[in-house]
Structures are given as C-alpha cells and as structure tokens.
C-alpha cells in the first residue's frame, strides 16, 4: 500500500515535508505503544502505528529501519521530533482514529501485521 493511499484511508495529516508519498510503499504494520515491542519484531521498511509521540518513537523507527509512522488518537509529536524524523528520512503522519480502527482499516486494504 502506498503512503498516499494510507493517508487517504486513515484521513491523516502529513507532518513531514517534501515527501512524495506515492513513491513509498509498505506491506507490513508494526502497531504498539511499547517501543521494545517494535524492536522485538523489526521488519525493515514497515509502517509503525503508535500513540507514543516522544522523540524515542522516531528513534525506535530509525533503529528498526521503519519507513513511516502513523500517530493515532489525534496525538501529534512536537516540532523537534518531527524535524528528527525528517532528518532521518522517516515519513510521519497523524490520524484522529484509534489503534483498533487504524489496524482494522489497514487490514481491510491487505496490510499484514507483525505484532
């Protein structure tokens, strides 16, 4: 699924800039608010779905070679965290939907889960 399709499906606001989301494709989702849970099942190139917005969420994505993060429940990371994601080439977006709905929708579109 391309990131622009994910943006539309989840009604996301894009937080990082200068991204052509149609060029980035993901097929696997890691969904958790626990960062060690994400690191326990690293899947390079995956999409991370989380409600944790501190800078360690982006660091976790960076260490696990994750391409993009969707922040849920209307949570938005601060400017410093978004800037760090931009610097590391990680696409960041936010949706008002909760974890259950986000995962359910992504599943409907054929995305696979890891954890």
């Amino acid at each position, binding site marked *: 699924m391309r990131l622009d399709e994910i943006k539309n499906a989840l009604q996301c606001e894009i937080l990082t800039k200068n991204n052509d989301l149609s060029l980035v494709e993901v097929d696997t989702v890691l969904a958790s*608010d*626990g*960062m*060690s*849970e994400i*690191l*326990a099942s*690293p899947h*390079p190139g995956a999409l991370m779905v*989380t409600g*944790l917005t*501190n*800078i*360690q*969420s982006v*660091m*976790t994505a*960076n*260490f*696990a*070679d994750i391409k993009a993060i969707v922040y849920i429940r209307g949570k938005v990371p601060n400017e410093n965290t978004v800037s760090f994601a931009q610097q590391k080439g990680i696409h960041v977006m936010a949706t008002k939907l909760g974890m259950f709905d986000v995962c359910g929708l992504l599943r409907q579109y054929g995305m696979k889960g890891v954890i």
Partner: protein
Amino acid sequence: MAEELFRKAFTIYGGNFSRAGESSTEIKEILKGLHIDNTIIRRSVIVAFEAEMNVVMYASTATLNFIITDEDICFEILDQGPGIADIEQAMQEGFSTADDELRAMGFGFGMGLPNIKKNSDHLLIESDVGKGTKLSARIRLNPDASP
C-alpha cells in the same frame, strides 16, 4: 585476538529522557559510515538503544563503551544504579519493575533485556545489588564465523 579498530565512550544520565537514545543514534551513524551490513547495524543499535534506555530508566549514570574490532561490535555498559537482584528473572520476556510513568514513555514492558539477548552473539551481565550493573554484549561482524 581481535584487533581493536575504533573506540568511543558515551556518558548516559539516568532520568534524562530528553536525551535518551542520542548515543545510540550516533552509534548508528558511525556504523553506517563504515558501510557495515544493515542487519548487523540494526542488531547493534537495538542492543545499544535498549541498554541506553535501561540506564535512563533505572540507573543514576553509566559509561557506554562502544568498540569495533576486526571481528565484532562490542558494547560495555557500566552503570551506577540499584543493580539486578535476579538476572535470570530479569531476562524473562514480560518481567519488569517499571512503574506506569516509565511505561508512559514507551518502555518498561519487560522486553529490553530479552531484546538485547536476542540481538547479541555473546552477552554477559554482572550485577551488584545497590551498586550497579555491567553489561557486555558482542555482535559478530561475520555471523557465520565461529564465536
């Protein structure tokens, strides 16, 4: 005997969440600059990051020695902290002494030490309750080489 090629020491401060993970971020950049295999880099930085977060969450301070030899990537973390009373128990997935405040930061779910073990080719943890913990982890540059 492995030949040491690079060494850098980082100081990590307990409770400093605003800077937690900075050492591991720098370690990733160093390893990327050396064009080391992506899987080895990923395993190494997961070890470094989990160890760094353990110090931030539980200890007062620590030194993280990051060493690259011609055979492996090594991390030695010596902390001043409460120590671990039962290391075997601490290695079990899901076991945690973290409180809700730490969990709200995204950590403390009992996966840190298991993640370190899973991503290390060699791991040694020595602890003195009330004084601190020494964690030594090695990741081989050539996973097929004999240990």
